[in-house]
């Protein structure tokens, strides 16, 4: 048995907002549970109330429009993102990144919103969405605000989300559709594992960015580079963005070295115009 808590599953955003407002700090949002259930199992947290948001229909939708781009509802799970036709067609980097999360069992439950809310430095959706210049929509009884993902992460497991807010959807801009891309994730084993470092790059006619995971207190991204930036310039911007540490999974030196290696190899792929893994 887990600790005692109450369970609510509102079906509308309005009900969710008022629940979160009334019980701010007490109510904890439950999406796929692949992080939360582990934390409760280990007795790291003991929430008073779990608020399951999976019954709110609009949070589960993936939409694509020529105007806004891609909108990913917070409770969309990795498996659905991977299968989505518009994601495959316009933003294949995201399908690739989602595929790198955990195992089948995990991907069938883990939500994209949950990945960004856990805000682990190694969150696989973090670096890919950063490379694509994504933003997140946060909602509450006080209204809705949009925050650029690069400003959203504030520290390890810390974000700009307030206690009474919910992450509603992720927006990937239309001008990043069909971007050339490449991604690498360094793991200790072949099977499912968290990243020692990960690198995701995206380039359009107008801009190039590198998103890096597990190499700073949060997932980070380079400044917007011109599409024509040289490898040296890209590496320089990458090393400016990161600040790795030694930990149980890898040393600082190894992380820096492999980040540089991956940027080089992905850059070479992009230059060859081959936008593949």
């Amino acid at each position, binding site marked *: *048995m*887990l*600790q*005692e*808590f*109450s*369970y609510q599953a509102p079906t509308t955003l309005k009900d969710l907002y008022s629940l979160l407002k009334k019980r701010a700090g007490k109510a904890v949002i*439950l999406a*796929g*549970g*692949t992080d939360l*259930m*582990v934390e409760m*199992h*280990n007795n790291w947290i003991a929430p008073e109330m*779990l608020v*399951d948001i*999976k019954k709110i229909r609009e949070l589960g939708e993936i939409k694509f429009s020529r105007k806004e781009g891609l909108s990913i509802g917070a409770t969309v799970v990795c*498996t659905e993102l991977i299968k989505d036709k518009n994601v495959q067609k316009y933003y294949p980097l995201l399908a690739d990144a989602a595929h790198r999360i*955990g*195992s*089948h*069992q*995990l991907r*069938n*439950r883990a939500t994209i919103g949950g990945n960004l809310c856990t805000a682990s430095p190694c969150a696989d959706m973090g670096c890919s969405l950063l490379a694509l210049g994504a933003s997140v929509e946060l909602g509450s009884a006080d209204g809705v605000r949009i925050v650029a993902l690069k400003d959203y992460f504030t520290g390890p497991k810390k974000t700009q989300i307030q206690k009474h807010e919910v992450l509603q959807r992720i927006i990937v801009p239309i001008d990043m559709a069909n971007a050339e891309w490449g991604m690498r994730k360094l793991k200790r084993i072949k*099977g*499912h594992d968290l990243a020692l470092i990960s690198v995701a790059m995206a380039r359009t006619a107008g801009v190039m960015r590198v998103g890096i995971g597990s190499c700073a207190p949060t997932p980070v991204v380079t400044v917007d580079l011109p599409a024509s930036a040289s490898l040296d310039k890209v590496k320089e911007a990458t090393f400016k963005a990161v600040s790795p540490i030694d930990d149980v999974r890898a040393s600082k030196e190894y992380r820096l070295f492999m980040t540089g290696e991956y940027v080089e190899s992905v850059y070479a792929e992009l230059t060859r115009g081959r936008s593949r893994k």
Partner: protein
Amino acid sequence: MKISLKVNGRKYTRDASESKNLLHFIREDLGLTGTKEGCGAGECGACTIIMNGRTVNSCLILAVEADGAEIETIEGEAKNGKLSKLQQAFQKNHAVQCGFCTPGMIMSAKALLQKNAKPSVEEIKAAIEGNFCRCTGYQQIIEAVQDASGQLKKKGELKRA
């Protein structure tokens, strides 16, 4: 909270404790103890079941989240005392040693074969990535899934990976 769900085609309605995970609910409240608990934290896959057509770790889901769900567990495999094709293939190919991983492993293999009747070795490996086996070294399990999908060559010609 009162929940209703279908497990292996049979409907159950029960009062489920909010703070019980689906794995414990299936084992303790429904008495279906085929599904195992290894880590209790999403790592090992011993608790794998099929929920609404997809494999999930039942240790990471609350029982109350399964209200209205359709679930398949290892108990749904054998019919009238006769092992399913997949179970027979596991037995024949020595894919079971201690057997602790087997119920979850078979659920992952079943979900794979439902989508892909003739999976390659690489596809089989990817499908069971979330299921740990500390006994067999996986080779026999891979062969069992190949066998169940009619792809296993005679043992003599078999090249072990």
